């Protein structure tokens, strides 16, 4: 079986080394740190593109850390899904970092770039690990970096939101350990592939404990993904942090979704016998409730950033529904929508910050007219159309794909009704927000900052994804089909991971 070459290890090691280097580069000043940080993310982007090409065709690549083979050691596994997540992270991180540099947000506190790189380290590690406990460790790495990033810049509101965010995630970590411990106690392994084997062989009296631990794990991942009823931390945290951090956090909720697809899809997949896909009705139901509440949140938001945070929540809920539908077509549609929603949400957060800078605030109240209102207004319309899923942009295609996949599900009437109703509510709310922001102006008030052209480039980069994903919809759906096909072949994944030999051994 193919072992992993060194390129496959780069997404994890690059940001870690870059983080340390940037910390040491402090003596060289902020500009040196910026340069190193941008270089590291650029390298990540190229590596991710290279890995994506290799990962779609062929077998998952396995890297045994310290040359300890699975299931005894920790392995990094790179398959199509992991490569896709690493690629999305790099695509999102570059403009977010560019925005932070061009608006000088990174100068508002110490160590922005170090934390940014460590965040990427945690994200890429979580996307590539094949070990449940190692997943916990990478979760902690990305969370600790995100605590620092969330609080970057300071301010009372940010501190309050940060306190809630940290407390809820510490509880999540504790529950994660309880779930992992219970699974280890029953199955005697931590390797995900080996867990899948052990669950299929588990005696009937152990199934109850395994199911309970699996649902506890779902709760933890649901907390990261902001699934009902554990979403209350998200709007405050995302609305109160700085714009580039909020943009990067668009991928943070997707970590929870990725973990559900990876861990639950693998361990409780086809081979799990009585427990096969026992979690999907929960995911579907919670996704539907989350979507409705997110739509209400979008309507009730008092400021643009809060509204975008609820739009992120709505996209997470749509993805949960896609996972809950539990079919290869639905998984492919989910992955398509995941690419779209991550990039557009990131772009929308940056755009919201530009608008807030232009008019002097992001609240939905009458304020000064902003400079370059036509350009920003047109961009807002574009982002709003993409985010709320209207034709002709990628949000529409993603939603149509998910709804088409839903037609084969017994509960398709409910799914269609909720998704379409939520979509309508969001369109109304976003249209209202646009008219409040751009038409309801006070001419006697001094306007805010002029538009920062270089920062605007970051918004264009991310929002261009919505148009590109329409033009390239056919190859992209082929890609997501291939990845979804890989994900449905769990026995092949399990066999590849468990049969990878040590380097130099037999």
């Amino acid at each position: 079986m193919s072992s992993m070459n060194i390129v496959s290890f780069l997404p994890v090691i690059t940001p870690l080394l870059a983080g340390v280097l940037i910390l040491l580069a402090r003596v060289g000043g902020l500009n040196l740190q910026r340069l190193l940080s941008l270089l590291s993310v650029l390298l990540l982007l190229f590596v991710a593109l290279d890995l994506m090409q290799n990962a779609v065709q062929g077998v998952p690549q396995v890297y045994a850390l310290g040359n300890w083979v699975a299931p005894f050691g920790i392995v990094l596994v790179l398959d199509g899904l992991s490569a896709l997540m690493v690629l999305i992270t790099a695509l999102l991180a570059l403009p977010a970092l560019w925005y932070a540099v061009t608006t000088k947000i990174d100068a508002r506190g110490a160590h922005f770039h170090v934390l940014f790189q460590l965040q990427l380290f945690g994200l890429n590690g979580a996307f590539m690990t094949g070990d449940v406990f190692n997943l916990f460790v990478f979760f902690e790495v990305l969370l600790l970096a995100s605590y620092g990033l969330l609080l970057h810049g300071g301010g009372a509101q940010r501190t309050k939101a940060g306190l809630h965010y940290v407390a809820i995630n510490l509880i999540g970590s504790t529950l994660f350990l309880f779930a992992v411990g219970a699974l280890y106690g029953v199955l005697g392994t931590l390797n995900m592939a080996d867990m899948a084997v052990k669950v299929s062989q588990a005696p009937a009296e152990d199934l109850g404990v395994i199911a309970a631990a699996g649902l506890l794990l779902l709760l933890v991942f649901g907390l990261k993904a902001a699934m009902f009823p554990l979403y209350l931390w998200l709007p405050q945290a995302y609305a109160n942090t700085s714009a580039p951090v909020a943009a990067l956090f668009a991928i943070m909720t997707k970590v929870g979704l990725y973990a559900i697809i990876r861990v639950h899809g693998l361990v409780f997949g086809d081979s799990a016998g009585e427990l096969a896909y026992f979690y999907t009705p929960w995911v579907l139901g919670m996704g539907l409730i989350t979507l409705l509440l997110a739509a209400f949140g979008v309507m009730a938001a008092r400021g643009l950033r809060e509204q975008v945070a609820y739009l992120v929540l709505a996209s997470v809920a749509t993805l949960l529904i896609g996972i809950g539908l539990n079919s290869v077509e639905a998984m492919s549609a989910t992955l398509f929508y995941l690419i779209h929603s991550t990039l557009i949400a990131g772009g929308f957060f940056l755009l919201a910050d530009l608008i807030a800078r232009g008019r002097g605030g992001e609240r939905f109240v009458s304020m000064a007219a902003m400079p370059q209102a036509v350009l920003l207004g047109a961009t807002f319309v574009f982002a709003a159309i993409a985010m709320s899923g209207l034709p002709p942009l990628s949000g529409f295609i993603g939603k149509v794909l998910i709804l088409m996949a839903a037609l084969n599900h017994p509960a398709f009437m409910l799914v269609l009704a909720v998704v379409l109703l939520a979509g309508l509510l969001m369109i109304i709310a976003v249209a209202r927000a646009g008219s409040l922001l751009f038409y309801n102006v006070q001419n006697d008030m001094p306007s805010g900052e002029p538009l920062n052209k270089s920062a605007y480039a970051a918004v264009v980069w991310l929002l261009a994804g919505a148009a590109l994903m329409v033009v390239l919809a056919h190859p992209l759906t082929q890609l997501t089909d291939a990845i979804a096909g890989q994900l449905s072949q769990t026995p092949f994944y399990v066999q590849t991971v468990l049969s990878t030999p040590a380097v130099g051994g037999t």
Partner: protein
Amino acid sequence: MEILIAAIIGILTATGVFLTLRGHTFPVVLGLTLLAYAVNVFLFAMGRLTSGLPAVINPAQGGYTDPLPQALVLTAIVIAFGMTAFLIVLALKARGELGNDHVDGRTDGDLK
């Protein structure tokens, strides 16, 4: 021994949950710490409770102590320690910036 360990985990968890639900930051920090203790003991117990057995398989002995949960507990302790330290600093920062130690930044007068 099983009953004792189970009772310890239960009491620690219950106390932790109760304290985490309090309105001020200090009890919340204490509650999270107790929850972390509870999960450490739980992880430890998941390797099965044995006494006087070696961690490395020895044919002369009748069994062995599973060393993996102990490694997991060690990792979990280090992480929980770092997180608690961060949370305490953050709670102090919140006390300074918000002017009180309520988790929502409100004074008792606001709550009535």
